[in-house]
């Protein structure tokens, strides 16, 4: 049974509380309206694909739109925990929203499984026994890009990211693995759409490659302008700017670019093949990275529910930690801080007919754990 | 003879090529009504604005009570005791008549160094209310005290303008066409009132109603194209050939 929106809170009071004792209630807060809605829609669709396929009538999912506003995410979380008494929460896309919601949610005894954001604080000092990250720690894809740059023999990178915490983490992550020189390091304005000035600096810098982290529309703008500028240094980026959802908007400008990801649709395992086919059949588009993360999150929850009731927190937690489900990434396991230890691949943007997509060309990091695990006392 | 309350020395103000004030000098002595007349566009309003502080002159000097106020703003001049009424009503239209008068009383209190309260209900402040009611009574607006200002007739608004000026207990008045829109009986009443008022403080009066001007004014200055062409008593002005020429065909001097 699924209820997409709980309409009037006031009416749904006591009756549910009685009937719900055998049910597991999952609260999903994600971004479904405004500029960043594409990511939330994918996470939701991937998640619900798995839930519906399981066909369990004792799992109920409540979905709410956070409008990408931390304040409204916090309030929805309060409502889900206090009023709808959810057992498990998930869905948040952005690190700043996760930082606003997760600590309070886990402190109130709710499990939180992150399908996307992985801020370093939650992986390190502020890790929590009820917090699991199913996607990655924020630095991971950037670290893989740094490692790939070494493998590819790049010696003089120009790196840029927006001037906000995730941007700084990204460049820090890249530099952690990368061994060469830096031709330049630029922080751009958050939400910037014109990169002519930065591209001119890249041109003048004498770099042999470019690494950038510019999520969403910023990345589209950068890539189009870069392709048009005549600068033809190799570009490396994290998967976010080459993901299925926005790749069509970038178009041919992205062809051939290397990007790092823990998942791709051509990873060859039964779960992934079925996932890609089912997702396309149901929604009429190729699944994205975010959809795969939503799908894995749901399957992890379902696998744990098969072993333990969520009301038995210790048993349920142990079942989550075991992570015995068929991940579309292949092997999947958690580190001590409940973040994935996984392979991160290098992909290349290709064209299949009319559609732009990725194929895996190398493995950037193998069984990689994040840099903050040692700070977590768990 | 006592010193003038207001002295204007060689005031000049141009707007582009237009000389709105061209070397204007005049004064206002205690106890007198000094009327300023002239055809439309002669620069009367511009002159009044410079005296009250709303416009800065290009050259010249203005003294109030012997002090040079040329560089002071409207507020400072008002606090020195310059009470002004406007040609185009500038009252707070959403307020009641009484509230407008209380505002004036408040200004007077502030000028004496009092503070504006943040908590006490100003409409229950008896000292302010007394001043306000007294001024309203003097211009005959007492019965309309609770009316909304926007609902007043034009004539009543002029009366209220005068009443607000009265609450300030000014040392001199600047009145810009207080008779306009009053009707025959109204102007007659106001004429009588101003006649008495001059003993409280002298009045620089800009007025189109020539009956009132010649009935009231101790002295009259005639402004034409920004220049004072004559100053003198009513009789002197009536017979001045230059004035007659300037007014020929404009208005009949009686």
């Amino acid at each position, binding site marked *: 049974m699924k209820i997409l929106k709980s309409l009037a809170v006031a009416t749904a009071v006591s009756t549910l509380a009685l009937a719900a004792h055998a049910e597991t209630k999952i609260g999903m807060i994600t971004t479904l309206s405004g500029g960043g809605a594409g990511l939330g829609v994918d996470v939701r669709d991937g998640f619900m694909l798995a839930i519906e396929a399981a066909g369990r009538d004792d799992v109920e999912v409540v979905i709410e739109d956070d409008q990408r506003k931390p*304040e409204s995410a916090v309030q929805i979380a309060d409502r889900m925990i*206090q009023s709808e008494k959810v057992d498990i929460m998930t869905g948040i896309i952005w690190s700043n929203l996760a930082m606003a919601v997760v600590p309070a949610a886990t402190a109130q005894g709710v499990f939180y499984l992150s399908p996307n954001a992985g801020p370093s604080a939650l992986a390190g000092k502020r890790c929590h026994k009820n917090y699991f990250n199913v996607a990655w720690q924020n630095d991971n894809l950037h670290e893989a890009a740094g490692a790939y740059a070494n493998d590819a023999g790049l010696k003089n990178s120009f790196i840029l990211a927006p001037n906000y915490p995730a941007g700084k983490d990204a460049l820090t992550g890249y530099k952690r693995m990368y061994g060469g020189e830096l031709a330049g390091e630029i922080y751009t304005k958050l939400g910037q759409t014109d990169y002519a000035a930065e591209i001119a600096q890249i041109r003048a810098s004498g770099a042999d490659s470019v690494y950038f982290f510019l999520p969403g529309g910023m990345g589209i703008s950068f890539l189009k302008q870069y392709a048009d500028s005549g600068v033809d240094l190799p570009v490396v980026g994290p998967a976010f700017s080459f993901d299925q959802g926005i790749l069509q908007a970038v178009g041919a400008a992205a062809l051939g670019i290397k990007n790092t990801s823990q998942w791709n649709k051509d990873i060859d395992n039964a779960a992934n093949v079925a996932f890609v086919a089912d997702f396309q059949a149901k929604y009429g588009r190729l699944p994205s990275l975010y959809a795969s993360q939503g799908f894995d999150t749901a399957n992890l929850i379902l696998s744990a529910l098969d072993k333990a009731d969520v009301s038995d927190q210790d048993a349920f937690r142990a079942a989550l930690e075991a992570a015995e489900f068929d991940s579309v990434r292949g092997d999947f396991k958690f580190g001590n801080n409940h973040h994935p230890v996984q392979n991160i691949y290098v992909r290349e943007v290709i064209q299949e007919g009319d559609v732009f997509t990725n194929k895996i060309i190398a493995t950037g990091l193998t069984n990689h754990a994040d840099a903050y695990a040692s700070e977590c006392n768990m | 003879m006592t010193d003038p309350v207001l002295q204007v020395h060689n005031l000049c103000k141009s707007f582009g090529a237009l000389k709105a004030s061209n070397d204007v000098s005049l004064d206002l002595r205690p106890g007198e009504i000094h009327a300023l007349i002239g055809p439309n566009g002669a620069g009367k309003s511009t002159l009044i604005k410079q005296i009250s502080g709303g416009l800065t002159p290009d050259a010249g000097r203005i003294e109030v009570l012997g002090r040079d106020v040329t560089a002071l703003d409207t507020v400072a001049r008002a606090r020195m005791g310059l009470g002004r009424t406007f040609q185009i009503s500038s009252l707070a239209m959403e307020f009641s008549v009484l509230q407008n008068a209380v*505002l004036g009383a408040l200004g007077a209190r502030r000028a004496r160094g009092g503070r504006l309260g943040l908590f006490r209900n100003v409409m229950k402040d008896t000292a302010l209310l007394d001043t306000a009611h007294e001024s309203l009574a003097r211009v005959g607006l007492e019965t309309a005290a609770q009316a909304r200002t926007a609902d007043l007739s034009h004539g009543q608004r002029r009366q209220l303008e005068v009443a607000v000026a009265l609450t300030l207990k000014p040392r001199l008045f600047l009145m810009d066409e207080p008779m306009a829109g009053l009707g025959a009986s109204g102007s007659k009443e106001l004429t009588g009132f101003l006649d008495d008022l001059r003993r409280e403080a002298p009045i620089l009066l800009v007025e189109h109603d020539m009956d009132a001007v010649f009935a009231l004014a101790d002295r009259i200055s005639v402004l034409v194209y920004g220049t004072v062409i004559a100053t003198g008593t009513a009789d002197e002005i009536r017979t001045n050939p230059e004035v007659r020429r300037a007014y020929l065909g404009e208005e009949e001097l009686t």
Partner: protein
Amino acid sequence: MGRERVFNAAMLLALLAVPLFAWGLDEPFIITLATKVAILALAGVGLNIALGLGGLVSLGHAAFFGIGGYAMGILASHAQNYEPLFSWPFLFEGSNQMPLIWLVAVLASAAAALVIGALSLRTSGVYFIMITLAFGQMLYYFAISWSAYGGEDGLSIWVRNEMPGLNTLDPIQFFAVTFVILCLTLWFAARLAQSAFGLALSAARQSQERVETVGLTPFKLRLMAFVISGAITGLAGALFADLNRFVSPTMLSWHTSGEIMIFVILGGVGRLYGPLVGAAVYILLEHLLGGISEYWQIFLGLLLLGMVLFARGGLIGALLGREVAHD
């Protein structure tokens, strides 16, 4: 006057009754919603002093809302992490005591309002709207890149701050705190509107010339109003951050300024209880429409539009008619 007074009392009672009822039903989230209404109404009451009474259309009040929020976030995070905020002239380790946080929030936002107001009030009309917007944007971009306090990620504090004698984590008790502050502020705003200062400020909105002619300085009146207005909005910001146990640059964005302004206009500009009505209706709409469609903002937009075009004077104006003169 009589009718509006009855209406106002009914609004306050409703704001009090809904969470009490929800408390009885054990529906803490409704209490949280009511708390949000009370806090946003407080921010609106602050803006309304500048906007309604003073006629100062500030599109930068998010600056004060955010400063209040950051005052809370900074004091509380230092207290939680045992990192001294400063050690000279005396050692100060931050604080998790609400009264002290409120004091700092009020002082900090008042100081900011003094500076921003003194510069902005040199302009008027559309230019004033835009220069206040510019100051808000400056602070917004500053907060985004101020990594010491979380930048874009914002600052999360894990537990709500403390209030002597109360358990603020209990929704109904925290609601009581905000409700009392709202009531006190409404009382203060009512006194202010009737005071000599309020009369002069309101006159300055209607006719600048008039106020100058009676010897009062409009600039000083407006600056004072702007400072009081900013301080109240700052206090609301501190409470809002405490409600969410979180502060981020979003509080400083121009959307926040727009929303606070919408509360005021929706309820009725210059109406004492306008912001309360506006905030309550806005929050209610947000939650009811949010359940109907993913595209609920279209409906919100249409409703707002209809309100502006056909219900002049805001909701209270539409319900109760033209405001009578203060007396």
